[in-house]
């Protein structure tokens, strides 16, 4: 659907400002009531979902004018979807989708963000979202004796992702994932050098066509392995394969099941195939990555027409994605299963979790804003009294670590996978 198709949704905005806050019943005090990093950092209403929707309405009526302020509003948004959840507590309307369309339109109109255009160009050229720095994709697996899914038939394909493959600090995450899958006796393999980017981040950056081209490449490789299940330890990749590929008709569950590693680990733990033994003695708090949580809610295919009359309703009725269908319990089940690990929750969790800052290309287009967003999350984590903040997204972990480095933060920062690998 194009921006024009969301005109009705955008006109539904009543400017109530609910999009700026967590669902109001969940406000637990003066602190941590905000949910949108963009408006929280930049304050003008046009940095909120409501403001952007109004700009969309005006643009459709009078034409789009790509001024510096407008572009700033457009690109200083993580597209984390928190606004969408908060609005849909009370309203029946799309919020995030038209905001994404505004960015896609800007790119189509020749107003791509220069930093993001470079990232997408690199992806198209190298198949990686991050600089490869002379390393090979499968270098992390050297000496581990893992199955090469290009050569051998496997039940499960482990998709590693760009950041985990190429960032030196994250290769151990891939190794830990492989260690866990091996320990649980999962028949899995990797694509190694042949793996390529899922393309999901290009979509969020507004480069829809580049995403679709990259997705085709990635899917062809995956299909060629014959694996029926794809598992990934990257929340962004999970959301791309699970939601975006389905949304654009590239994949269905019968053909290729997509799991995040936390879902698979929770399953393996419940079956007794994974048995954590070592006591870790750690009080942790869990950060719900946006792409695994609210943005990871399965896509709902629907087509319908607005029913004429007083209400914004459709025939057949439109089932809205409201954020509740994301992956929230599996990572928590995994943490609860680890001996000595105590989980304490932050104020903003699950569908109304505060973004860690990296989404929507902001980590590339405005690193200062991305880091500020992560700092807010660390501050919230500290309020719980936990020793560590645990996540399930290398992108979130990377940014949290950067933010912690600058702020003398005492918190440990881990991926769920790392803790499980330590415990088994």
């Amino acid at each position: 659907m194009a921006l024009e198709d969301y005109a009705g949704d955008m006109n539904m905005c009543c400017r109530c400002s609910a999009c700026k806050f967590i669902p109001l019943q969940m406000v637990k005090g003066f602190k941590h009531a905000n949910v949108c990093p963009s408006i929280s950092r930049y304050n003008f209403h046009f940095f909120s979902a409501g403001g952007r929707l109004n700009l969309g309405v005006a643009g459709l009526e009078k034409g789009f004018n790509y001024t510096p302020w407008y572009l700033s509003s457009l690109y200083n948004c993580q597209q984390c979807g928190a606004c969408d959840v908060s609005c849909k507590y009370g309203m029946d309307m799309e919020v995030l989708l038209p905001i994404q369309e505004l960015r896609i339109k800007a790119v189509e109109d020749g107003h791509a963000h220069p930093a993001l255009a470079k990232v997408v160009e690199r992806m198209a050229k190298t198949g990686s979202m991050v600089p490869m720095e002379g390393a090979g994709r499968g270098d992390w697996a050297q000496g581990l004796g893992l199955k090469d899914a290009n050569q051998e038939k496997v039940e499960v394909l482990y998709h590693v992702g760009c950041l985990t493959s190429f960032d030196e600090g994250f290769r151990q995450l891939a190794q830990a994932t492989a260690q866990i899958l091996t320990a649980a006796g999962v028949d899995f393999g990797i694509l190694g050098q042949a793996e390529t980017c899922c393309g999901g981040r290009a979509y969020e950056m507004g480069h829809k066509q580049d995403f679709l081209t990259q997705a085709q490449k990635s899917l062809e490789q995956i299909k060629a392995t014959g694996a029926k299940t794809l598992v990934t330890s990257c929340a962004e990749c999970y959301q791309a394969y699970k939601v975006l590929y389905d949304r654009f008709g590239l994949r269905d569950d019968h053909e290729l099941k997509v799991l995040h590693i936390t879902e698979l680990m929770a399953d393996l733990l419940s079956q007794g195939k994974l048995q954590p033994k070592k006591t870790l003695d750690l009080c942790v708090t869990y950060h719900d990555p946006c792409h695994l949580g609210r943005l990871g809610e399965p896509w709902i295919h629907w087509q319908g027409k607005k029913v004429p009359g007083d209400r914004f309703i459709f025939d057949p009725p439109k089932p809205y994605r409201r954020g509740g269908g994301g992956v929230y319990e599996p990572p928590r089940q995994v943490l609860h299963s680890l001996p000595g690990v105590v989980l304490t929750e932050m104020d903003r969790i699950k569908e109304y979790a505060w973004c860690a800052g990296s989404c929507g290309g902001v980590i590339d287009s405005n690193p200062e804003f991305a880091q500020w967003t992560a700092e807010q999350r660390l501050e919230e984590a500290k309020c719980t009294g936990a020793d560590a903040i645990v996540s399930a997204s290398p992108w979130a972990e990377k940014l949290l670590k950067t933010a912690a480095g600058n702020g003398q933060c005492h918190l440990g920062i881990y991926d769920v996978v790392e803790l499980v690998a330590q415990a088994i």
Partner: protein
Amino acid sequence: MALSKERFQAFADVVGEENICDDPTMMAAYFRTDFAAVIMPKDPSEVQAVVRLCNKFQLKFRPICTGWTGTFQPGSILLDLRRMNQIIEINEKNMYAVVEPYVTSAQLQAELFKRGLNTNMKGAGAQCSAMLRGHGHLDQSCGADDRNHLAVEWVTPTGELVKMGSWGAVGEWFCGDGPGPSLRSLVSSVVPPSTTPGVFTKVAMKLYHWPGPDKYALEGHSPRYTLREFPSNMMARYYSFPTLEKMWQAEIAIGEAEIALELMGFNAAMVAANITTCNEEEMAMFERLSKEVQGPGFFVIIAGDSPEDFAYKKKVLETIIAENDGQSLKTVEDPELEGILLTQCTRISASVRETFRPGGCFKSIPIMGQRDLTIRWAIGAGQAKLPLIEKGLIADDGGGFFGWGVEHGHLGKTEIFCKFSALNPVAWEEVTKWHREQSQRALEEKYFALTMAPEEEIETKIGPALSNYHVWWNKVLEALDPNGVVPDKGMSWLL
């Protein structure tokens, strides 16, 4: 309509360039109005400096807090008070909280619950400013309107900082009237212009006892949060009555007995809106509830300070209901739905689902007055909605209206909505016509004078009906605003 370079720089020197925007493209984000600029001051001294510049340049200005709604003039300056967002003080002993404009009711209430205190949640919703003057679900036990404003700090239209009440006299916030300057009449108008010209920078809000938990134990996901456990000292019920007279008598009796935390004269459509998560579910629920109710009704929450207090309140409530042939709605007795209504009404104040969800737009006639009189008017206004419902121009609520007594009294709020599609010009026209006709009827049949009206009607109709108060008001405004920087004769909003 951007500012000249010189003017832009003068404002930017006060607030910093990152806190002023005069890009005409971006003004559409704010109320779809062509403002000259949006400016975000961070404290009262910056507000004063900006206001003085508005006077110097003869630019009209209007402030907003969370900025839900309002009327705005193209070419004016919008003061977005978003950066003034601190709770200055919660005084538990003297039961008041001092807030800046961008503290939301949700934030303040969450802090108060921890201290066994509460604030009135205004009908505009918990996302709106805690300093908003207005009414809401908790009017029965938490006062309402300007009665909840204690001392106020106010920047006048010329940029003077006025500390009202005890804040001006002794540096304490406990009282809005003397021994310092008592300007309550300027800040408390309930007839047009409704609110005060200038900018409130801090307000002390009166607080009330909260007998509920320090936080609700909620589970589930948005949009359906449910209570893990219903508080043992609370109960929420919807009662319907065979006649309006019996409903009214029960409402009076409950008020006089001072037993209700909340009494909200919801119609069935509003109950349906609040307990459902989408339009389709709401319409089906409305149909179900319409068959279940025996007539008009209200929603009640009682809460006890002890098991004995709770038992007493429950017994009194049941006696009053029985004496007036009331019936409890079985649907609301379902513990899950009872919990949803309890938390929705006490925490959110329930506005968006029941107003904007249907079509994104609503028009309302809200009135404060003697309840039995305003109810009589509302019956007619509700009947006048029926043809619009039949034509499919407004959402079907059975011609319903709603209202409630304030502070356990006979005086209260009565209100009636028309909810319709923002994109339907015919609906807009017809609803506007309904609005005018029913407002006119209120005046002609001596029910009340409308509290919201176009400027010309203030001079020609409402003023003359209310002792020509507008003549006095115009003189006050002339003195307060010699340079004419207040738009619309002072009608400004605190949402």
